[in-house]
């Protein structure tokens, strides 16, 4: 190897060794990314984030409680950050809603459409506008909306599709509702058969009328403070005489016998199954699925890393202590009442007829 080759080899080696340090030195001497990482980014994940943002925006645009006269005074259009906002009034609103065509046009033009009076969305209407109703809103069958918010009552006819979120004071949903995002209400939501959503939240959520074929739930037990913890290894069936005054942890599958009353939380590393009329004054946690029989009363929260099935006439949470249901997929039977919020990774399905899940 001659001198030139040796020098070339040395230089190549040095280049390879020090090459990564060139951007390093540049970044050190002229920092381009030296700010603290932003934290508390969970705001958009909060269930009511988009609904509350919309309400705040409308309050900012129109004032907190605009009267009907004031709304008519505003006119038909206003602008927000350069974007046209359409304010629709009674006469022109009803004209447009008869066909839905004009609303589609408004959706193309405007980012936000505000209904100053009682609003009606025609059947089959499809729009990408964000809709805000100052009073009640009625959405016709087979309408496809992006997002919709109402300061009053919202009635959804059957087969409505919501791409992002809906929010109102009270919502009554027809059959076959599909919400690809969130459905929230300040007071209550009534779901019908074959409804589907990803996240939902309201002080009280009804899933159809009580199913008379099954037992009814007893009152949700009040929370108690306890200091006991029962550990079970392997698959276990919990009977009432075994434990009723503390938390239960089962390192395997757990089955809670009929009419058990447990004044603590239950965790199963595997499946967790509650038979009929079980009452739990605490949370249910499962590494796999949770199956809740008919007429159970659970204070919550319910957390499953897989699916949850809630049987007919069960009650989750209470009006005093609203709770949270978290799972991959949720299936809710008729007559169930949930106080609080539901968050699923995939979707929640409301199924009134009896079907077999093979669990």
């Amino acid at each position, binding site marked *: 190897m001659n001198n030139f080759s040796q020098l070339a080899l040395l230089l190549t080696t040095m280049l390879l060794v020090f090459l*990564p*340090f060139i*951007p*390093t030195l*540049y*970044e*050190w001497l002229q*920092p*381009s*990314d*030296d*700010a*603290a*990482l932003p*934290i*508390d*980014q*969970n705001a958009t*994940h*909060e*269930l009511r984030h988009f609904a509350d943002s919309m309400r705040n925006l409308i309050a900012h645009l129109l004032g907190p409680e605009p009267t009907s006269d004031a709304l008519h005074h505003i006119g038909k259009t206003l602008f927000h950050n350069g974007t046209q906002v359409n304010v629709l009034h009674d006469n022109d609103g009803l004209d447009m809603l008869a066909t839905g065509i004009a609303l589609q046009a408004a959706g193309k033009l405007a980012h936000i459409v505000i209904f100053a009076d009682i609003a009606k969305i025609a059947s089959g209407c499809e729009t990408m506008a964000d809709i805000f109703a100052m009073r009640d809103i009625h959405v016709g069958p087979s309408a496809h909306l992006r997002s919709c918010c109402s300061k009053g009552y919202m009635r959804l006819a059957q087969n409505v599709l919501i791409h992002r979120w809906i929010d109102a004071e009270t919502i009554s949903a027809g059959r076959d509702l599909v919400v690809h995002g969130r459905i929230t209400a300040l007071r209550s939501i009534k779901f019908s058969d074959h409804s589907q959503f990803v996240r939902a*939240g309201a002080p009280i959520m009804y899933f159809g009328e009580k199913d008379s074929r099954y037992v009814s739930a007893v009152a949700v037990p009040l*929370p108690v*403070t306890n*200091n006991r*913890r029962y*550990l079970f290894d392997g698959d276990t069936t919990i009977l009432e005489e075994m434990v009723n005054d503390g*938390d*239960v*942890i089962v390192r395997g599958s757990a089955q809670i016998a009929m009419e058990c009353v447990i004044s*603590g*939380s*239950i*965790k199963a590393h595997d499946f967790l199954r509650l038979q009929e009329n079980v009452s739990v004054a*605490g*949370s249910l*946690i499962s590494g796999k699925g949770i199956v809740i029989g008919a007429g159970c009363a659970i*204070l*919550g*929260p319910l*957390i499953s*890393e897989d699916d949850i099935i809630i049987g007919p006439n069960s009650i989750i*949470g209470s009006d005093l*202590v*609203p*709770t*949270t249901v*978290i799972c991959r997929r949720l299936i809710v039977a008729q007559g169930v009442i949930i106080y*609080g*919020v539901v*968050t699923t990774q995939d979707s929640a399905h409301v199924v009134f007829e009896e079907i077999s899940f093979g669990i």
Partner: protein
Amino acid sequence: MKNVSRLSQLGTWFILLTMAIPLLSSAQALRIEEPSQVVYSLPIRIMTCMLAAIVLMLIVFTVRHYIFTLARLFGRQRQPYLDIEMGNWPEIVIFIAAHNEEQVIADSLTALLEVDYPRDKLIIMPVNDRSTDNTRLIIDRIADANPGRFHPFHRIDGRPGKAAALKDATAMVGAEIIVIFDADYLPARGLIKQLVAPMFDPEVGAVMGRVVPLNVGHNLLTRLLDLERAGGYQVDQAARMNLGLVPQYGGTVGAVRRRALEEIGGWDIEMLAEDTDITFRLLRNGWKTVYQNRSECYEEVPQTWRVRIGQISRWSRGHNQVMTKNIIKLIFNRELLLRERLDGAILLGVFLMSPILIVGWMLAVAMFFISPQHWVIGWLAFFALVAHSALGNNAAFFEIAAATYLDGHRNRIRLLPLSMLGFLISMVTISKAAFYQLYDFLRHRELVWHKTERFRRMTIATSAAYVDTVALATAPGVEQEPLLENVTQ
């Protein structure tokens, strides 16, 4: 497209060859040197065995880093408690551990006033542990200005140390959940609920949130520490949570269940690293620790190497102290899953790897010169490869790179090569601390807790508290405090 495919094939072959060469050379050397032909002296045999053991340990840690990073990047993410928005929230107490924290305590207390946890179930207790500066006056002033919100505990005597202070504070309240912050931490509004939410799981004994450095841009050290923290939390802790292993409770930005604490015998005031001690005692008693990656809180990282070296020395001594206390009981605890025992044991040995690595390097160099066996060269090459993987971009630093990718702030990854500097300093510091710890143990000396120095300048909130404090201090009969100069600056 064809070129890309060819390049990827070439790359794959290159990697395979890179891996294969040292292995083949080892095998070749071993084949040439048969035991019958070589006379092994006892010291050489011992050194060889030690080197082989060290190589094995390095491989274990290297594989561990790879698994964690890949699990974090591509595996299923487990954050089952993050979405709990409503529930029967338990009564909690927040301890703000403070020892001479006049520079930072006001900010922390002010931030806690804004949290969204139900007020009727929340006790905020600043734990002023024998402070000799104006921490007490600042706490009292802020408590007086917000009646009913704070319940200060001024500890004026007793054994020094955070564990001892927390033990005394715990005895004063009966809340079900204990949330702990150091005085330099700034909790966000929703953080407390996030830290308490996993406690709805009756098996969870402790919860840990993510620590995010606030003073990143101060100098090179703070930027390197930011990278290190990102790798440690965003990848290492998160992966341990995802894989159902042993996430570590870090003593701050965390919560402990009182019932679990009592079951394991409370705070051990002998421990320098009471947080790690709690993690492993909980684990041994069937309680889980949960890491919440999205529960983030700002902290202040050391701005000088002197303070950093002191901090890491304390961590090293504390961690090794916990290791000697727990490792045997952990390994032979048949109640735990095998993966928990394995991960727990490796975690306990983390601070031993620095002195072991130094010994490994020394052995490798020594054997290179004194060993007559050729096969050592093969082992040396293999060792070099593994050491490179352990130190280099493909293992521990791979975690940091993945963390910056996940955090979405990618320009800071350019500083990664300089992390070697921090790594080498840490390695020497940890080794020195381990040596002195052994020395102190042999001489029956007690381990001493040293507080980490703060660098944050006085904020408006702190200054306001000072002004009021000064007004109090200058009242008739009250001794003048020396901080007047600071306030007027």
